[in-house]
Every structure is written in C-alpha cells, then in structure tokens.
C-alpha cells in the first residue's frame, strides 16, 4: 500500500481537508468584528437638487450630495473589498416602501487611499426614478450602506446611523 497513487490520494485529500479547516477558521475570525469597528460617516447630505421632471411617464430627480466617510475601521485581513452605496428610501401610495441606490463605489483593501471618502457635490450615478409619477412632495431619506466581501467566508452588511432627509418640491422643476 505504498504506491504512488495511494500516496497522492492521501496528500490531496489531506490537503483539501486542511484547506477547508483553514477556510472555516478564516470565516470564524470575522465574527463580531463589524460590531466593534464601525466606519464613521460624518456627513451624508443632499447638496443640490438639480431637477425633478417627468420623463417617459415616470418621475425622475437628479441631484448631488456630500459624502464624508472614513471606512478604514471596518477592514481586516479577511476583507477583500467593501461595496459602498448611497440608498434613497421614500414612501408612496402605490409602493409603501421604495429603496433605490443612487451611487455606489467599490473600495478594495489593496487601495487604502480609497477608504476615506471626502467629496462634496457628488452627482448621482443612477437617477432617482419612481415606478410611477409620485415623487413630488415626498420625503426622501439618504443612507450609506456597505457590503463586506471577504476572501473566504460570510458576506454581511452594515449601514450608517447618520442619515439625512430632504423633501422633494411639490412641483416639477
């Protein structure tokens, strides 16, 4: 029982078992980290509402916002990247809950210079578009959320408690 195949078999399967064990340990090492280390969002606020128009039968708002956030605390060795995005939520009669992404960014662990965001007057990547024509006069909340994407293990989200709201005008502009 000392042929090449038996030895190869033993090495390969032992190697795979060790890899699996290490992956599980890597996943476990992240447990509780995001509760202890949270990013600091110092500013997320509407800067300027550029327009609110009816476009193809649906309401559409274009705006810009300020975002000051320090994402460094939430990184650790098993995080490959953070997917950061600004979410606008509002209610309408047709849809009691609407959550729309206005802007997103990929922040990779290998680019630490991206981890501190301090930009003003960021124009939205995706316009705030309603399913119908119900944006006028609605109150919109802006929130920053981020998705932790690990090298190996579980994916989990975090969101900022520092949110801001603004109200859209009653008429088209």
């Amino acid at each position, binding site marked *: *029982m000392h042929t090449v*195949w038996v030895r190869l078999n033993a090495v390969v399967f032992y190697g795979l078992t060790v890899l699996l064990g290490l*992956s599980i340990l890597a*996943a476990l090492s992240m447990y509780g980290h995001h509760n202890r280390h949270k990013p600091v969002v110092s500013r997320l606020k509407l800067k300027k509402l550029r327009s609110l128009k009816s476009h193809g039968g649906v309401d559409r708002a274009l705006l810009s916002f300020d975002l000051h956030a320090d994402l460094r605390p939430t990184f650790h060795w098993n995080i*490959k*990247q953070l*997917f950061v*995005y600004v*979410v606008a939520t509002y209610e309408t009669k*047709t*849809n*009691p*809950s*609407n*959550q*729309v*992404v206005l802007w*997103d960014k*990929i922040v*990779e662990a290998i680019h630490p210079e991206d981890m501190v965001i301090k930009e003003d007057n960021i124009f939205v990547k*995706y316009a705030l578009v309603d*399913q119908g024509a119900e944006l006028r006069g609605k109150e919109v909340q802006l929130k920053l*959320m981020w*998705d932790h*994407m*690990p*090298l*190996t*293990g*579980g*994916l989990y*989200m975090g969101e900022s408690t520092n949110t801001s709201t603004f109200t859209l005008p009653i008429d088209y502009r």
Partner: protein
Amino acid sequence: MLKEIMEKQMVELRKLWNNKRQLLFQVLNLAMIVFSALMIWKGLMVVTKSESPVVVVLSGSMEPAFQRGDILFLDNSQHEVGVGDVVVFKIKDRDIPIVHRILKVHTKPDGETYELLTKGDNNRVDDRGLYAPGQMWLGRDDILGKAVGTLRYVGMVTIALNDYPVLKYVLVGFMGLFVLTTKE
C-alpha cells in the same frame, strides 16, 4: 505506466468477480459514498429552502469581489430582500443562474410583493437588457437565494467539467473504479 495501472485494475476486477461477497461489499461501499453526498446536498436544500444552495460564479460581472470559479452559498429561507443584497436569479425559461446585486426595491402595499432591479457590480448598466422581452422588474420568485458566503476557486472544477463534458465521465469512471478495487 498508465497501461500497467489499467492492467493491475483489470486483474483486481477479475479477482473481485470471483469473490462475490467482496464484490457486494465494495459495491455497497461505493453506494454509501454516493448516497452520503446526496444526503448532504438534499439536506442543504432543505435548510436553505433553495433549489440550488451552492452555485459557481460563471462570469466576471461581479469582479473584483467574485471571480469565475468561486462558489457561493445561498440562503433562500427569508422572504424579505433588501437593496444591496447579492442575489442569484434566473430569468424565466432560461437555465443560467446570474449573480448580481439588487439596485432597486419597490414594495407593494401587501408588504410581500417586490419589484426588483439588479445590476452586476462590474457592469456599466443595469440588468434590464437581460430580462425577458417586456419584463421591467424581477419578482421574488425569480430569485434562487441570497449569497451568504463564499469559497475561492473551488468552483473551477465545475467550470472545467462544464467546458469539457467528457471529463465528467472520465472522472466518475476513475473514481468508481478505484473505490471498487481498493482494499482499504
């Protein structure tokens, strides 16, 4: 060298055929392994309430987070989906599962019906162009599950098997042969 191994296996198989009890033992051994694997798979399907609890990432549309060959663990047990969730969905009447992120969620007054728009992180535009003709939104039923965990590179084997189907038969053939003839 391969010829020697094949000849050795043939000798073993012939020996096995003569000893029916041993043959039965080895066949049961093989069956145990196959059924254990099946049980684990089905068990995962029950726990995650998903028809496909483990998927392989096939395209580069979610790079750099998920690369071709990574495997994703899915959980379909929660009805609720939120904006930003990484989900795997299938367009009606199409076979290929797609892994993208939810960009927009509109919830209807019943609190349960969702209309969703998705987009791959690495794509320039949202997925409307991928949906069925005339389909503007995805529903909760189109979603196979939410990605909750990932393992790198493990799915490379599946991609290789997919690209070269003959490998499937070769692999299963060899594995079956070894399990039948090994004496351990």
